[in-house]
């Protein structure tokens, strides 16, 4: 099952490569990629699949300098998301 990540990137040299490389090195496969320059940013949309929690991947990608923002399109794995949100103190209800 793949999940889609939508990025806004700085339009700097290598930014797309850096993001795609990080995703693969963290153990996810790239299923689909779209990218275009819009004004002062690159919009990159990537469908990824993998065994590991995508929420951790997102936090790893967020620390890249080139990544201005990254969003996960509504994700079916609500349980993991809720657990992880709760560990950060978010008042999310963990489905049982």
């Amino acid at each position: 099952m793949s999940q889609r990540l939508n990025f806004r990137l700085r339009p700097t040299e290598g930014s797309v490569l850096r993001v795609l490389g990080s995703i693969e090195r963290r153990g996810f496969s790239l299923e689909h990629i779209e990218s275009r320059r819009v004004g002062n940013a690159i919009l990159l949309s990537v469908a990824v699949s993998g065994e590991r929690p995508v929420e951790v991947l997102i936090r790893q990608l967020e620390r890249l300098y080139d990544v201005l923002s990254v969003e996960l399109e509504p994700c079916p794995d609500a349980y993991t998301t809720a657990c992880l949100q709760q560990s950060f103190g978010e008042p999310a209800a963990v489905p049982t």
Partner: protein
Amino acid sequence: MSSIAPQRAAPSPSVEAKPYRAAHALLDALRAEGVRFIFGYPGGAIMPVYDALVDHPIRHILVRHEQAAALAANGYARFTGEVGVCMATSGPGATNLITGIADAYLDSVPMVAITGQVATFLMGTDAFQEVDTFGLTLPVVKHSFIVREAEALPAIVHEAFRIARSGRPGPVLVDLPKDVANRPIFAKPSHPVPDPPLPECNPCALERARHLLARAARPVLYTGYGVFLARAERALRAFVEATRIPTVSTLKGLGGLPTDHPCFLGMLGMHGSRAANQAVQEADLLICVGARFDDRATGKLDGFAPKARVIHIDGDPGEISKLRYAEVALCGDLSRILDALSLRPVPPEWGRRVEALKASDRPRYDAPGRFIYAPALIRRLYERLPEDAVVTCDVGQHQMWVAQHGVHRSIRQHLTSGGLGTMGFGLPAAIGVKLADPERTVVCVTGDGSFMMNVQELATLRRYGIAVKILLLDNAALGMVRQWQELFHDRRYSEVDLSDNPDFAALARVFGLWAARLESRDQIDALLQEWLRSEGPALLHVPIDPKANVWPLVPPNKANHEQLMET
């Protein structure tokens, strides 16, 4: 020992008349960032910068291999907490830097690496000494820049430093094409602005952590290098004083709590102490402070701290629940979080249990036989060292003996390549430390294998009169690999014998060092003293038992409590 530091020409007034070039602006920008040393090695593509160096006040240290430039900058940065700077030419200069850059990446060390590049109009044509340095380093840098516009250079340098030191530190590459370096520019160095403060930690999470702590019967603190990165040693110590929670540390976290503190149980993991691993095994609450559940620390992950809930306190949200789910994640300033958590002391039964674990796990230093027993020697060394001495290590058995048997009083006094495990780290790192603080005693504990990886830096010691003291533990082998072959490969020894090593003391003397060989136990005290008191750089060569192993040991793919003890 005479220092032959090269003389610099005084800046001449005629310099003002020449156009201000990007290469010069680079050096000015480094100075504006407070850089004291550039560790480097010249070559074709970086020549404009070396030309600008001739009449620039910044100090350049010429190493004898670019790997050592990166590792010296790395050691400088680990010790000072400032950004280390290394520089090399394109092609082979840049590829030689990569090991030291990767080392900084895995160990979160702030560094800026500057590489020359072929001229922009030649890039992409397979020109002489052209490699894609940007691409080669992509997975081992925090960020990287190719400077395509000369005017952008000062701002890029400033940004590189900010990135290298902010948040979780790491190395940043600045690749500078030769034609760009030669261009005249008008931009002035931009001035450092302070980093934005860390966000406040989520109060709900803090409340949940307090709740878990208040209920825990068997809490254990598990601390790492993040304590140093967050400058949180004071807060950690105060927290332990208030709660008396038993504490274990990763290799790189050693010294966060002084290792002779009564609450300290030792290093955890593969070569961790039995007390540390057993306490984690029994814990019902694990408070991880600035550590990342590395496989060398956890052993088989699903057998790690099997009864514990986890509170993970870290400056980097990217580490939370990466390998082990954290019931509570506290991201932000470690000191403030620890200060806000301090609560009631640890339950007395647990205190007694841990004391018993610790009492039954005291290392012995009275090995039989005539060989010098490395753990006892390390112990003796630390008894003789000034309290503020810094020890750098190489990689292998000797590294583990230092970790286990040294007394580590703060994290920056024990520099070790943890993430990458880079043989050859010790000597260049010691050079970086000793230059940063010439008054300190700086010791490099190395092995006969590792030492040869950057042996050429003996010439750097001599050139600048850098009084590093090298303790070479010679087991005539790649000992750590030999140990694994003995235990896990049916004693099928493969390419680990180094019994044809050179005479290390003679070798060191050729490079102008004081050197001696320590051969019997009754010489230990006298020779340690002579070696430490000698003027200038010095090497003490110590043949040890070639069969000695590091104990305890958690076998690969086993849980930490299944560790093997010496038989």
